[in-house]
């Protein structure tokens, strides 16, 4: 098939280079890790210490606990509210400073927080949410003491049943600094720029309208700090994002909301959204309540009227049409890379090869179980295949067609942590797009109310003026930077244990994986 493809040509067009100049000075954001404590007064902890009436206020517990759970301020008569979430739980028993044992009056008791039962879901378990919060707070993976099981969710299939087979000791001793996690995005050799990102992931499209200004800007700043990208989604290009042009992907979706030549020319990557994993075969959907005056202005629509993007692109019926589309963008912006975001139907492998022939630099597969602002439940659960299958199919097919090394394969749709990222790469992706993880870092707990009324009660996926004031861009950026850093540490650790110098060596190494439901191997000690 590869031979039947139209040979690649660089379009010689007459656009002056000057339209491409970045006119807005670009923001610099340092990759500095510092604590970004949770923004709520009471944190949700996995274990809680209950204090009974037997407490004689001797202060011993406050004195011995190195985590500082018990708050007994000098001059006060009673304990202040404890910092439950820093308690390391049952792991404390063997440390010699376990307050429950050391309390002379046996007034303390440790229980698992009953609220864990109502937090999270099969895909995002309570442990995974709490661990992600911890990473966003500290910038490092949570210490094993906490006992969070956060490497997998509990969905019973796909990533959640796949494990790495680590060798007993690395075949090659490497230090963290010897390991390169960067990813090259242009493999076409078509004269367009080589764009390299420092981590093998970038931020998913979340439109202004589905999330707040503050959320979008926080994502953008973290993208700058890690020399990677964020994406505008399909709701138009906010002026406030201009200082982040160099790290922003702008989306051209079926609704063409807010797409202008000028916005296409600002960026280094343009993404065509053919479909979205959470609602494949259906267009985007912004419910009336969220179309506030400012959203309507950005999208050039009417306040309070629901917005539907059609499915599919009504101008694309064939690979040739697909190519025409890409050429249009490549013509408008001669330096941009083009990504095709598609979902995962049974012929996803054909779609991927088609995208390559049409001229895409990146094919981005968005699996069925990914995040979204609002989608019909019937679509989220039932349409198109989970991303795990799609990665394997597409990687294989591109390889057989002989074009695997000329296109960048990006996967998304339910990738929650560094382990999912590494597994996706080992299954055959070059890199991934993340979305929900960033929102969780900002305090999302997946209550699924993003679409209702004024929007997210936690001020993340909302454009309600009052609700979105719950946190600042500084705090939000730091949380996402911290999360990215923790993920990177974990990814480096995985590569180190395999003795790999580059993340690209992990790609397609399914021989390093095992699936708990299959006969291949038994799980080895971690």
């Amino acid at each position, binding site marked *: 098939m590869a031979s039947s493809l139209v040979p690649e040509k660089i379009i010689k067009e007459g656009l002056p280079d000057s339209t491409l100049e970045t006119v807005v000075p670009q923001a610099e954001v340092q990759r500095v890790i510092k604590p970004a404590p949770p923004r709520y007064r009471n944190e949700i902890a996995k274990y809680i210490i209950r204090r009974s009436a037997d407490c004689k206020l001797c202060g011993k517990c406050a004195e011995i606990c190195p985590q500082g759970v018990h708050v007994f301020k000098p001059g006060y008569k009673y304990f202040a509210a404890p910092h439950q979430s820093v308690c390391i739980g049952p792991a404390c028993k063997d440390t010699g400073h376990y307050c429950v044992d050391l309390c002379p009056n046996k007034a303390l008791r440790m229980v698992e927080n009953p609220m864990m039962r109502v937090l999270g879901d099969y895909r995002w378990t309570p442990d995974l949410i709490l661990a992600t919060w911890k990473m966003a707070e500290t910038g490092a993976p949570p210490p094993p003491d906490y006992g969070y099981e956060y490497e997998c969710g509990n969905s019973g299939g796909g990533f*959640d049943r796949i494990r790495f087979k680590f060798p007993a000791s690395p075949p090659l001793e490497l230090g963290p600094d010897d390991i390169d996690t960067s990813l090259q995005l242009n493999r076409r050799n078509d004269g367009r720029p080589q764009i390299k990102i420092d981590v093998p992931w970038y931020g998913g499209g979340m439109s202004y309208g589905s999330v707040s200004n503050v959320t979008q800007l926080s994502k953008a700043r973290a993208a700058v700090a890690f020399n990677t990208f964020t994406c505008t989604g399909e709701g138009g290009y906010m002026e406030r994002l201009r200082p982040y042009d160099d790290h922003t992907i702008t989306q051209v979706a079926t609704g063409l909301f807010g797409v202008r030549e000028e916005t296409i020319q600002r960026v280094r990557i343009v993404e065509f959204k*053919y479909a979205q994993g959470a609602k494949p075969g259906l267009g985007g959907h912004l419910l009336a309540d969220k179309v506030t005056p400012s959203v309507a202005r950005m999208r050039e629509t009417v306040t309070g009227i629901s917005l539907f993007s059609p499915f599919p692109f009504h101008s694309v019926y064939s690979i040739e049409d697909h190519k025409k589309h890409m050429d249009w963008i490549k013509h408008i912006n001669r330096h941009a890379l083009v990504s095709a975001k598609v979902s995962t139907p049974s012929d996803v492998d054909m779609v991927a090869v088609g995208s390559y022939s049409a001229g895409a630099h990146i094919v981005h597969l968005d699996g069925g179980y990914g995040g979204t602002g609002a*989608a019909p439940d019937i*679509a989220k659960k039932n349409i198109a295949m989970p991303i795990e299958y799609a990665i394997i199919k597409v990687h294989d097919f591109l390889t057989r067609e002989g074009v695997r090394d000329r296109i960048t394969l990006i996967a998304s749709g339910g990738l929650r942590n560094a382990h999912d990222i590494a597994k996706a790469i080992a299954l055959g992706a070059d890199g991934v797009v993340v979305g929900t993880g960033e929102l969780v870092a900002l305090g999302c*707990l997946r209550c699924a109310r993003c679409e209702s009324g004024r929007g997210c009660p936690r001020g993340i996926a909302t454009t309600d003026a009052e609700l979105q004031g719950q946190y600042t861009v500084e705090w939000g950026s730091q949380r996402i930077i911290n999360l990215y850093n923790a993920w990177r540490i974990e990814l480096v650790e995985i590569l180190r244990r395999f003795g790999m110098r580059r993340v690209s060596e992990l790609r397609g190494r399914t021989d390093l994986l095992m699936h708990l439901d*299959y006969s291949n191997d038994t799980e080895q000690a971690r």
Partner: protein
Amino acid sequence: MPDKYHIKTQPIPPRRPRIGKVGVVDWREDCANCHNCVKKACVFDRYREEMSYIRGLREMDAVFFQCMGCFSCVQQCTKGLLALSANPVYERLGNTYWTPQIIETTWTQAESAKIPVSGAGYRGRFSGPGFDSMWTDMSEIVRPTRDGIHGREYISTAVDIGRKPALLHFDAGNAASGLPPLVDIPMPMIIDMLPRGYRLPNLLPVIKIVAAQTGIIAVIDSKDWQLAGNDLDQYLPNLAMYLDTSAPLPGRELLIGMRLVEISDDGNAERRVHELKQINPGIVVAVRVELDSGGIERAVEYARQPFVEVLHLVADDNGNEIGEKKPRFIKDMVRSVHNSLVESGIRNEVTLMAGGGIALAEHMAKQILCGADLVTVNLPLLIALECTLCRDCNDGLSCPAKIGEIDIKYGVGRMTNLIAAWHDQLIEVMGAMGIREVRRLRGEVGRALFFEDLEEATFGKLFGSRKNN
């Protein structure tokens, strides 16, 4: 443009307190009585609503559980006195097949008639037993060629029930035999009899109106016929009488008015069909085949008989093979009947209706993909009336949901809303699949993805054989 099938709906609020998944536990003892209590800040105004709810209570029969589970109040309370807890009443809803989520979404759809929409991506398990072991596919992204590109308003959900002969026979230029009768209904669903234990006496008058208003058909047992009311004449086109082995032949007026009738699968089926057709040659007769261990074979055998035009394949309430320890599931059983008829080249000689375990709109689409022409539904319509499937009625106890006391308007409204929401969801998935007619969805496994196949083609290739667990 011809008239579009459209179901008129209006919101019908529940009679009983809502049962949410989570509730707030308030340890009041230590409360600091802050002036700025977080309860005022609940974005959903739940606390204020709770106060007015408690004030309006006539009896203390339930707790207030309408919290949306955002944890904001819990995390902001000055003294950390609030906690969320799982609602035990919610967790006890239904059973392992008819899960609390199924009951809850059925209630919301019966109230609003809307397609359930939510944020934050998919939250459930990767796959599961029964209908959860398949996905529907979507149309090609860059080559949406199936039915071309079209709007939702062009999607047809109508089906014909009856025999569709492959050939017409001509005799001297005239059709040698008349065309067999067909019953057409605007969506691929009929209302089946409720399982015995759930047949509360006041439901049939409601069901008959729902069938007429939505243009579909309700099957009513001849033994319960009296309960449906005295004004049945106008409803006959939307009713189908079920005759079991012992039931006498119904009167002529009834048979002339009805379009569809159903008989049990026993040795007398052939004689029955002839008797019925003698009175009304235009009536379509369905044979009800209970899918027990010999069900599939019987169904395939019946399909070969010239007197059979419709088979109604029925699994148990949970979609399982009847009376088996290791039962097969309805979708797989219907698929094997369908495949065997396709192989014999007689698939269009019979219409397959499939029921038992159809609990959500997605099951309707998936069952049709697996070879049924249409589905039959019963328990969801009862759940629409706020039934919790507690089964008290089966044991002769009084119904805690007081379904015996509902008024007609409420009952008709709730059931109609549910059917409308299912219809819209069917259009939604068909739109995504790029299929314009539900008749062409039947057996279209090219638009279905099966868990076993995908696992085999991907993980199976990499990791060996799948363990049985």
